[in-house]
Every structure is written in structure tokens, then in C-alpha cells.
């Protein structure tokens, strides 16, 4: 089947609707797919044969100092400048309000001079307290996972491999607590790099920085082990090092981003949903794909077994997911269930009818996975330069229609109830940390961030009900400027129906965590480990090839990785398809 024959438009019967997809409970059950941004970046690195070099290492015996790690693309070099220091244990926090970190990083556009490194040595360790220039693309920091870090150094120094179960329980050596790009604190604006092929897909430059940070952490423990153990020391086994990701602790800052970039979110979701629809519309399975899917179910089971978290809600969901994947495997053993016309649609439909959202979204990821040849082109459609415009010439009657069609979820909420307006979002003066407050409890309602989309649509709808329909919106906005932002948003939704979260973000039951997981899954994160309803830890690049493995045939085979082993089934989307 050629890719042309499975082009799907937004009206396809196989396309899930915005009403189904853009709900918090489903968004909060998201998993990474092969369209996730880390996967896209790794494929590009391999295809373009990027080179990686450590170009500077000026550190003491404890690893404190400065290092530079470079990624050399066909046209440019990007350099991660890493500063490491000793910090007091009681100052190690994942929060934005932290003041010190084990390691701090700037991703430099090009090859830094000594003058650049000196400038950044004065600023990067201060993070938000420093100032950066358009030559810096990303600012980030990370803290050690102390028990894993020390365990690995000790083991390697004494000539042994580290405890794989311990590595599996954490997943990384260091955890980033912020990765800033796009003009933050004076860094380069996105527009500076947006036209570069390697930066066109979303968040590629930030994720390149994270990839280099991961390499830096592995290099650091190997060097420290060598320092401690001398000739006795060994390097990490490649299967173990490949399983080591880089952690991330994500809090509320991501949620406002999602809400403030509706066009971008629409593009992400449409790409993923189009990929799913293309797969569901396949009448006869492509050769080998069903077999790969069945094997991937087994690996997914093993991956889930290794996904252990303290959070009770997520633990219950993981337990349920374990049982459901097992049930699905048994269902698939009956060949009549899967070797039939439209097999992928049949599998999807069975899962949707019988299993939890967590399982449904994992299966979405697994059935897309063997179809790189018909979905990978969608990765090119996921960014945007469009800024939603206020369209003054639209008529109020048309606006009313859009509200009635696309915002029923908002207009039917009773905002007179206290629980419907329980929360508000604000920026604290404390390093501009985003926080989530409760009305009547926390200060700051007057400085609420403008994220009350449902409530604002509801209020607008009430005013529209008593306004002449023939009036142009421009005239209406002169009389009611307080609705300008929400009108612009509604107009955008008219053209981009997957741009809006269709739930009340102020309600008492709202969990920002759902928004975080949705966004992180698009990044390619795994092992979601909620620490409260407001923040989560994750792993990034777990299972991804390291720089010296980027040309390996299995460079694209790292979805749902398992500890210490490479993927247990052949991938048919990259060059290791020869293995089938």
C-alpha cells in the first residue's frame, strides 16, 4: 500500500473527534509514539550521520569543572557547555525556586570560544539569575540521583557492572529540573533557528540539549570510575548504558504553555490522530506488521512490569494496564480476531470497547509503531509559525455558531457553583514560579493567569445571547474589549478543532498532571512517575542509542524499553527490518 493511498483528512471515519481526544482524562493517559519529538530527532541524527565529540574536559578528581560536548550536523555544530559543582544535600530540590544545582548547562550555537565559556561560567550556574545571548539556544540544569550515581561509579571502579534493578527503579543518573529555550532569559528566539532543517520539528533544539546531557551523565560516571578505580575500572555495558535515560521533573510551567499555544497543540494532535486513522484504515495488514505488533505486546508487558511508582492512583492504573495487556494478548491468540479485513481498526475498536484509557492510549502507540513508512512524514507537520489572529470582520452569528458547535463543554458548566471555579493559576514573585491556588484560600485571584477558557467562553456566550447578530466582531470588541482574547481563541478553534482542552481547568477535580503527561508524551517521555497532582518525574531517551550507536541498524527501535536488553523484536521501520 503506498502512502498516497492512505492519506486521511480530518473528516475521515477513522479519525477520533476532538470531543473524544481533547479530554483531560484521555490526555492524562498519553504515551509516546514514533512521532514523538525525541524519536524524530534520533531518526534525523542517524539519517544525517551526526558526529558527536567531547571537545573539552577541565574538571577536578570529583568531576567538578567545565566540559563541552558537541553535536556536529551536516551544516552546523551545537555545543553543550556543562558546569558541575558540589552542592549541599539540603539545597537539592526539583523546584523552580532552587538556587543551586549539581550541573548546569548552556547549549551554544556553534563552537564556543574561551571568551564564551568564561562568560557562561559567570552566568549558567546562576540559571534564571544569569543573562544569556542569542548565541545560547538552551539553558538547563540537573541534579544527581545520588543512589544511582554512586552505585554506578562504585561498581565500575571495582570492575563490575552496576545493579540493573537499581538502575531500572530510577532510570537515570541525573534529573533535569528545567530546560529553557525560545528566548528565555535572553537566549536565542525560536525564529533564529526555526528555518534550520534540524530545528523545524517542535522542541528539537531543547531535546538535543537533553540528549547531550544524557551523554554527559554517562561519560561523567565512567570518567569518575576510571579516576577512582584506575586500571581496574570498566566502562558500562552498552545494553545498560543504552537503558540509562535522563530524568526530568516537570511542574506547572508546562500547563500554561499548552494553553497558550493552541495552534501548535492542534498540529501535534492532528498529526498523531492522522497517524492512527491511517493505520486503522488499512484493509490488509502490511507484511510483518501484525507479527511485530504481537511481539511488541510482550515487550510492553515487560516494560509495564518495570514501571513502578509510589503514587497510588498511577499504581492502580498500571496494575489495570498489566491485566488488560494480558487480556489483549489472549484475545489476539485467536487469529480470527486479527487476521481479517481492517485488522488494526478491529484491534483498536476491541480495546476501546473493553479497556481503560491508559490501555487504549498504549495500544494507539503500539499499532502506530510498525507503520513508519506511512506515518513518519507527519512529523514534518507538527510545528507552526501561525499566530492566531483576531478576525474583526467575522460576524457575531458565525461566532455564535462556533461557540455552539465547539464549546458546548464550556457553555454547559454551571460556573455559579463554587467547585466550578475552585482553582486559579498564577505566577509567584518567587522566581516567577507558576503556582496553582485555591480561591478563598490563597492570595492572588486578582493576578490570575488568563487560562480560564471555559469560564470566559461561558461569560461571552451570555453576552452574545443579547447582542445583534449582524454586528461585526470588530465593533463588538470595541464595546467589550474584555472578550478580545477569548474571541481570538474561538476563531482559532474554528479553523483548528483539536486546539482546545475540552474541560474546565478551574474545577476542584482538575489535575494539572494530565496536561503535563499529554505534553511530555509528545516529547517522547516515559515512566511517568507522579509526585502529586501538580508535578511528575519522567525518563527521557531511555533505550535510545548513545552517540556511538546512532548508526546502528536498530537506532529507531526504543519504544517501551526494558532493562538491560535491546528490543526483543525486530523493528520494521528502520534498517533492522532485514532481521525479519
Amino acid at each position, binding site marked *: 500500500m503506498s502512502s498516497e493511498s492512505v492519506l486521511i483528512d480530518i473528516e475521515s471515519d477513522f479519525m477520533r473527534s476532538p470531543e473524544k481526544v481533547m479530554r483531560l482524562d484521555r490526555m492524562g493517559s498519553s504515551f509516546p509514539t514514533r512521532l514523538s519529538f525525541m524519536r524524530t530527532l534520533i531518526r534525523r541524527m542517524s539519517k544525517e550521520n551526526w558526529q558527536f565529540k567531547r571537545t573539552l574536559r577541565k574538571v577536578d578528581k570529583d568531576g567538578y569543572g567545565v566540559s563541552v560536548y558537541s553535536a556536529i550536523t551536516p551544516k552546523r555544530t551545537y555545543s553543550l557547555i556543562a558546569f558541575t559543582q558540589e552542592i549541599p544535600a539540603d539545597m537539592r530540590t526539583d523546584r523552580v525556586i532552587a538556587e543551586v544545582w549539581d550541573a548546569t548547562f548552556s547549549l551554544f550555537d556553534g563552537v564556543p570560544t574561551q571568551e564564551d565559556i568564561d562568560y557562561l561560567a559567570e552566568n549558567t550556574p546562576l540559571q534564571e539569575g544569569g543573562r544569556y545571548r542569542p548565541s545560547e539556544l538552551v539553558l538547563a540544569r540537573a541534579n544527581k540521583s545520588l543512589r544511582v550515581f554512586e552505585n554506578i561509579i562504585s561498581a565500575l571502579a571495582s570492575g563490575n557492572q552496576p545493579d540493573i534493578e537499581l538502575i531500572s527503579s530510577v532510570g537515570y543518573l541525573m534529573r533535569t529540573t528545567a530546560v529553557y529555550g525560545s528566548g528565555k532569559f535572553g537566549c536565542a528566539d525560536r525564529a533564529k533557528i526555526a528555518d534550520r532543517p534540524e530545528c523545524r520539528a517542535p522542541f528539537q533544539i531543547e531535546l538535543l540539549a537533553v540528549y547531550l546531557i544524557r551523554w554527559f551523565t554517562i561519560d561523567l560516571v565512567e570518567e569518575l570510575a576510571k579516576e577512582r578505580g584506575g586500571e581496574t575500572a570498566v566502562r558500562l555495558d552498552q545494553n545498560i548504558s543504552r537503558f540509562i535515560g535522563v530524568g526530568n521533573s516537570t511542574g506547572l510551567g508546562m500547563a500554561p504553555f499548552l494553553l497558550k499555544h493552541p495552534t501548535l497543540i492542534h498540529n501535534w494532535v492532528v498529526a498523531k490522530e492522522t497517524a492512527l486513522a491511517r493505520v486503522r484504515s488499512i484493509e490488509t495488514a502490511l507484511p510483518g506488521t501484525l507479527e511485530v505488533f504481537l511481539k511488541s505486546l510482550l515487550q510492553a508487558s515487560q516494560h509495564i512490569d518495570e514501571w513502578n511508582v509510589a503514587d497510588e492512583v498511577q499504581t492502580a492504573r498500571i496494575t489495570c494496564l498489566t491485566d488488560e495487556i494480558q487480556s489483549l494478548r489472549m484475545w489476539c491468540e485467536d487469529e480470527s480476531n486479527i487476521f481479517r479485513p481492517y485488522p488494526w481498526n478491529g484491534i483498536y475498536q476491541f480495546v476501546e470497547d473493553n479497556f481503560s484509557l491508559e490501555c487504549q492510549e498504549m495500544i494507539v502507540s503500539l499499532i502506530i509503531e510498525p507503520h513508519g513508512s506511512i506515518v513518519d512524514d507527519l512529523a514534518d507537520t507538527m510545528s507552526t509559525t501561525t499566530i492566531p489572529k483576531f478576525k474583526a470582520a467575522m460576524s457575531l452569528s458565525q461566532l455564535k455558531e462556533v461557540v455552539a458547535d465547539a464549546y458546548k463543554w464550556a457553555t454547559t458548566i454551571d460556573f455559579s457553583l463554587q467547585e466550578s471555579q475552585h482553582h486559579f493559576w498564577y505566577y509567584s514573585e518567587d522566581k516567577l514560579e507558576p503556582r*496553582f491556588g485555591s480561591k478563598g484560600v490563597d492570595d492572588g485571584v486578582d493576578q490570575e493567569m488568563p487560562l480560564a477558557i471555559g469560564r470566559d467562553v461561558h461569560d461571552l456566550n451570555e453576552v452574545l445571547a443579547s447582542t445583534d447578530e449582524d454586528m461585526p466582531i470588530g465593533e463588538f470588541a470595541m464595546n467589550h474589549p474584555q472578550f478580545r482574547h477569548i474571541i481570538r481563541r474561538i476563531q482559532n478553534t474554528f479553523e483548528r478543532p483539536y486546539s482546545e482542552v475540552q474541560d474546565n481547568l478551574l474545577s476542584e477535580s482538575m489535575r494539572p498532571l494530565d496536561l503535563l503527561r499529554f505534553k511530555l508524551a509528545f516529547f517522547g517521555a516515559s515512566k511517568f512517575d507522579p509526585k502529586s497532582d501538580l508535578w511528575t518525574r519522567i525518563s527521557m531517551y531511555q533505550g535510545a542509542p548513545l552517540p556511538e550507536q546512532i548508526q546502528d541498524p536498530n537506532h529507531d527501535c526504543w519504544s517501551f524499553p526494558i532493562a538491560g536488553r535491546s528490543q526483543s523484536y525486530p523493528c520494521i521501520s528502520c534498517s533492522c527490518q532485514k532481521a525479519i
Partner: protein
Amino acid sequence: MPKSDLTISLNEVLFYFTRAGFGVKAPIGVSEDFARSNIWAAQNGFDPSECSILALDNLDLKKSSLSIKFEKNSESSHLFCTEEKVLSSLEASVSCVDWIEFNGLDGELKISNVDCPFLIIASLGASQCSGVKASWTDQDNNSFEVNFIDDVKWEMISSSEASIELSHYADVYISSLDAVKSKIQNGNNKIFNLENEKLKVLNNGVKVGEKWPEIYEYFSRCLVKSSAESRASGAGAGLVDTD
């Protein structure tokens, strides 16, 4: 960040100016457009804090108003403040662009008694209104004309050496580019090319001068004082993480 003579990014212009507008109680949608106008000004090499500080001060001190009305007859149209105050350029600028979109420019549009005419220019530029002319004579008797030639190229003609972004309090006239001939004889002429200027800004950043701390002060009104309780629970994460 509150110190003067900084270099900031365009994204920071968006972030801080949106909230600075909100900090003087402009509606958020108007503040968003105000920030976009300031990005356009910055992309053309102007210090956005110089362009905007008077408009923010006036709103804060209630010397200007966001209340706006329009009148239209067969020859011309008129946007004006409904109160006995100066018309805030934050509202004048968005209403001007809206007016052109829903009404067209089939005559002259007069916008009365605007505090910062350049913000109207920035708004027209940010909205890529080509084929439009704007002109005014300010309280110091400096005359300016701006011609939007196409999406990226615009021309400024001035009767004096005065800076256009510091021109204040004027009736601004908007028309089609070819509808009215230049009234400024032997003026200073400068042509801007947004694409070239933008590239310079992307590579060097936006310089903000002595007015920046005042912009930051308005921005900081959007921040909530931190308490022991909000510090402990508002972000959901603990204060110490060791694992």
C-alpha cells in the same frame, strides 16, 4: 531583570509587555496585541520600552481611557474616546486595525487625541497592513507620515529630527497609500525593511534602555507575593529532593 540597559529577546518582549499591559488593567486580549506591536517595533530597531512607557503611565494614572466609539459618514470615519480623556493607544491601535479589516479604507479614518501614535503604526505593521498611510502632527508640532509599502517595507517621513517613537498626543489620520499626497515638504525620509532589521535583532537581541525598569514594574504587578504556604504547596513539589 528590573535593571536598565539590558538586551532581551523577542519572546521576552511578548512575555513582559503582555503582562505590563495587564498590570495597568488593560484587558488581556488588548495587552496581547500591545505586546505584538512592541515586537514589531523591536524588530525594526526601536526600544519597545521607549515606545510604550507613556501609554502605560497614562492608563495607570487614568489620564487616558480605553473607551472608544466610532462614527462614520460617506466621506470619512472617526474613532474617538467617549470620556474627557486622551484615547489610550493600546485601544486605539487594535481598534484601528479592526476597523480597517471590517470596514475597509474607502475614505479617511481619523483617530482623535491618541497618546502614542507610534503604537498605532506598530499595530498596523504587526498586522501586515500594506498599502496604508498614516500621518499626524504632534503636540510639539512635529509632523510624521508612515507609508506601508508592502508586508516588509515601510517608509517614514518626518518634518524634524524628533524620534517617531517619542511623538506624543496627536490626531492620527489613516488612508490608502495612494489616496493622499505627502504634506511634508523636504522632510527626512527613511525606509525600513523588516526582514533585514529582524535578522539583526534575532542575532543581537533587543536593547532596552532606561525605561525598562518601569515596564518591569508594571509587569511585576501580575506576580503574587509568596507566602510560606504557597511556597510549600502551590507548586505541588517538595522543597528538598534527595534520592
